[in-house]
């Protein structure tokens, strides 16, 4: 008796916890509301199954608990029942899978007009790069990484000269414009993770991965690393600022291009050399 009640209470408590939990996903700031909807749908289907199974079990434990003189029924199988349950399960699974695959198709199909933004992870900080006026990012290579060129950009690539390089600072994005985030790392695996955007992808040294989204809400959002990357994994933070077009232009004006930065580097090197001579 007590056991049956406790089993039932576990199911009820789980549902109550779910309904009243103050711990829920962060308010969405991207176009991926479909992902949230799919999760909600999955919660409904799986929650119903969970409650049904546990409630049935609790009822059995209550109703058929051992008492003097009880004999169990002899019932090796019931083909029909088993097939019905299988078919029902298959339908439930399909109801979750089908929308999931549709949304995944959207997730991996980048719209034509998306602007490219590069995010580079390294132990343990984030750097960003935006294309310059030409709208294209230059090439890069981990072999080119040096104190003057921490992102390993290719100095001979004309496309890269006007790229805007942001280090130790926040990334700014324009509200309502689709972004294709190109992800790159120069040492270990990282994962550019902004909970409000829902999207996420590992960055792999040696190759470039991507995902896309459209920011739908202005504000400042925290960036975390979601793939274990060593001792200071938890401290690898940054911020993304989503703002209106006008503010974004103003911010862009203040940023420096790769060419400017490397010139500055050469100048300081030159002065150092003269000074030492």
């Amino acid at each position: 008796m007590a056991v049956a009640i406790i089993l039932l209470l576990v199911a009820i408590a789980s549902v109550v916890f779910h309904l009243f939990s103050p711990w829920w996903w962060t308010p969405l700031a991207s176009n991926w509301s479909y992902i949230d909807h799919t999760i909600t749908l999955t919660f409904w289907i799986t929650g119903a199954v969970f409650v049904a199974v546990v409630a049935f079990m609790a009822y059995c434990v209550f109703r058929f608990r051992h008492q003097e003189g009880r004999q169990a029924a002899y019932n090796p199988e019931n083909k029909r029942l088993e097939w019905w349950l299988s078919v029902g399960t298959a339908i439930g699974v399909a109801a979750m899978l089908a929308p999931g695959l549709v949304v995944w198709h959207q997730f991996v199909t980048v719209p034509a007009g998306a602007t490219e933004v590069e995010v580079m992870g390294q132990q343990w900080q984030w750097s960003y790069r935006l294309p310059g006026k030409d709208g294209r990012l230059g090439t890069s290579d981990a072999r080119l990484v040096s104190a003057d060129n921490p992102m390993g950009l290719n100095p001979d690539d004309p496309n890269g000269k006007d790229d805007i390089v942001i280090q130790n600072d926040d990334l700014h994005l324009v509200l309502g414009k689709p972004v294709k985030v190109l992800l790159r790392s120069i040492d270990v695996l990282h994962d550019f993770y902004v909970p409000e955007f829902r999207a996420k992808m590992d960055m792999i040294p040696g190759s470039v991965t991507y995902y896309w989204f459209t920011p739908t809400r202005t504000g400042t959002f925290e960036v975390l690393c979601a793939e274990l990357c060593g001792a200071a994994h938890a401290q690898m933070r940054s911020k993304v600022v989503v703002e209106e077009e006008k503010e974004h232009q103003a911010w862009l004006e203040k940023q420096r291009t790769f060419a400017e930065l490397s010139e500055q580097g050469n100048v300081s090197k030159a002065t150092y050399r003269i000074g030492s001579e």
Partner: protein
Amino acid sequence: MVDVRFDTIAGIPPAEVGEVDLYHPRSWWTRYVFSQDAKVIAVQYSITAMAIGMVALVLSWLMRLQLGFPGTFSFIDANQYLQFITMHGMIMVIYLLTALFLGGFGNYLIPLMVGARDMVFPYVNMLSYWVYLLAVLVLASTFFVPGGPTGAGWTLYPPQAILSGTPGQDGGIILMLASLILFIIGFTMGGLNYVVTVLQARTRGMTLMRMPLTVWGIFTATVMALLAFPALFVASVMLLFDRLLGTSFFMPTLVEMGELTKYGGGSPILFQHLFWFFGHPEVYIVALPAFGIISDLISTHARKNIFGYRMMVWAIVAIGALSFIVWAHHMYVSGMHPYFGFFFATTTLIIAIPTAIKVYNWVLTLWRGDIHLTIPMLFALAFIITFVNGGLTGLFLGNVVVDVPLSDTMFVVAHFHMVMGIAPIMAVFGGIYHWYPKVTGRMLNEALGQFHFWVTFLGAYAVFFPMHYLGLLGMPRRYHDIGETAFIPASAHDLNAFMSVAALIVGFAQLVFIFNLIWSLFKGREAGGNPWRATSLEWQTPETPPGHGNWGKELPIVYRWAYDYSVPGAARDFIPQNEPPAKLSAQGAHP
């Protein structure tokens, strides 16, 4: 084709299989230490696994202390936290669960349940244990090498695993890989035994479809493990090459702490494919024996045949086969080709169907049963709840697009602890309470068992159910300290503290369990040969604990399946598998 005769043949001569080959221990050393008796090896495996498991348990306390009360314990820093999670995960998954289910339960139960005298290759079986012990010792030694154990996470993803930004870059990772290689060699020796014993040493009348589901589960899991562990072997050897010889199997061109390394061109994704080609079957290697054990516990303690035995067998086989084509669902956000997502999401969700059938059949076995709420039964009920819970959250993570926001968060941690941490451990406990009387001849203490069960079940549920919601919130895993983070409310820290307290209490209950194991060995109630009035062969041995060679002069003959409970018209509510049909015994034929 198989020749089946239902017209019970009278007076079949008893099988005398294996009497010639049976090894006989000559001294105390060969009887209890370097023993070739599967029952002794099983106990050795179990004790070793539980001992190293206690280490992993203590590590989990330290982790929970840090997570619940960050900054309070100055002796835990970021490096140590990573080392704790790595060792905790690796020990629990491989050195505890795999070893305990296959090396422990497998060794003890397979020969007894199929009516054999011993495993078919006893010497290799003994070697298997000693190699396993060596692997455990090598693993444990990493705690004492300079730099400590590796902190690469139990997945050991390169490049991070072998670079200097990760703790334990020297001895830690090298010995970890060496230990895994040893474990796999040792396991292969044991695994060959389990498979061939089931294939070859079944006693007369023990057809596959008469085997208890425990044997089916362990057998299928062993076959899977034999085929899947080579993937971990290959990955470990190649990673060891990268670390020690400077090859670039997995290592791309990269910059380590501002310095360009000599590595170049390798593929970190390749490691992940190899790792998960092992890693996903591993989930079912742990789950299938648990499925089998739970089926038998429920059937025995509800005094009712398992509902839909055939479906249960087919589901085990189907799950075993399917589990080899779902591995990349661990890699949805790894940066592999996005189109793989469609395939792997589909296969992953299909595997939910045979799994669901198993759950339905367990609860349908309870329906109109005669449910004895013994400790093993309670653990079986708890298994169903935690397994269903964890299995259902698997439908979130298996559905590729839902996985995107949830991967690498606490939701994943909660999911896999529920489904392959708590649930299999419930099966382990249920199994131990159930078979301890056969192993020792004494019952485990009931009151301590009740305490242990309720604290463990409710406590563990209180730890891992709320944890899903921290994941939904976006709290990443493998963070020793989430720190000041805008989207994490203060209440989340309180929840973490609550979970930590619950975890410590659950941990304490395990000490009570260990105490019970030792105390009952001497003071437990005498069990007799068949305390649960069960049908399967291990309860029908002439001696309890079973003597050397398991059976007396003659091997048992099997006349029925393992689930003849509450058969209408029978004198008792169970008929042992080796009890001849009424017609046959009336003729005075062989008993």
